[in-house]
């Protein structure tokens, strides 16, 4: 798997981006290696929008090396961390799922909701239930269907999304409807629940 990670910070109002990195230099003749720290500062306009911030942040991630970017906001800071190993592929336990058509993902919260007389209600988020996945696809192999059914074994499985995100899941329900008129095409659909590592 291609290894790549990035760490991003996004904030509503940013004036400067201060980035640091280290270059590894090797002398081809003497084969000596030295580390050269580098820094750079990018100044944005005062009227910067969120979209511009996101775009600028991602411009820093195009390089092969891992880059840490530090943004200093005027107010408020929302940390967004994205780490991925491989993209554009859905796999479970490092085995690619065949012909994935869609992945429905929902992340419900537990909200305490108490009405208050003559006032707006008291609403407090008590926690999250974790993500629920419904994955649909098809395959031309009956043995693949059997393999998919085997994932509903109560054990943790590593699910990797096409966005590069990954998490441990329990596969709870595997549905394999067989439509007689669709020769050699076997649809599958299964539910998975995110579990803690």
């Amino acid at each position: 798997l291609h290894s790549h990670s990035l760490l991003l910070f996004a904030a509503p109002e940013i004036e400067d981006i201060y980035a640091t990195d280290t270059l590894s230099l090797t002398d081809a003749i003497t084969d000596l290696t030295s580390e050269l720290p580098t820094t750079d500062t990018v100044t944005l306009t005062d009227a910067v929008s969120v979209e511009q911030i996101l775009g600028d942040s991602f411009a820093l991630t195009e390089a092969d090396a891992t880059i840490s970017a530090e943004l200093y906001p005027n107010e408020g800071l929302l940390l967004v961390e994205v780490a991925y190993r491989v993209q554009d592929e859905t796999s479970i336990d490092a085995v690619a799922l065949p012909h994935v058509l869609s992945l429905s993902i929902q992340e419900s919260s537990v909200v305490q909701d108490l009405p208050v007389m003559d006032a707006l209600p008291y609403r407090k988020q008590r926690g999250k239930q974790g993500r629920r996945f419904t994955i649909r696809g098809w395959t031309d192999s009956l043995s693949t269907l059997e393999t998919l059914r085997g994932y509903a074994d109560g054990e943790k499985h590593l699910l990797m999304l096409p966005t590069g995100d990954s998490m441990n899941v329990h596969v709870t329900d595997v549905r394999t409807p067989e439509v007689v008129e669709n020769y050699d095409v076997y649809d599958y659909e299964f539910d998975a629940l995110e579990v803690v590592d």
Partner: protein
Amino acid sequence: MVRFGDYALPHVLEAQIQKSRVEIERTIPHRDVAYRADQTTRGRTVRVSGEIRCATISDVAFMIELLRRLSDDTARILDLEDGTTSTMNAKLTDPVYLLDTAEWVANDYRVPYSVTLLEVA
């Protein structure tokens, strides 16, 4: 553009506002209509749905993560910017999104999403 705090929700296509109240209801034997009394407001619930439209999967991943992180029990100012609905304090919950990979093409990745915003004081 729908703004939530200092952030703009990406490509909003629909905003559905639901306003409900708490109603006390007691059925009464042999009466055609139950005893009903209004108690208080339950606050507005805004269901916003739209699409994340990005040129790279990395951008998609970033926007999804941003939506997930906004569900942090923090009240922010919700402004639908429709010219009629006043701003309100709200908390974002229950993000739902669909990775419709069969429809993805290079340089045009679209992810339908929806979030629920609960009005708070």
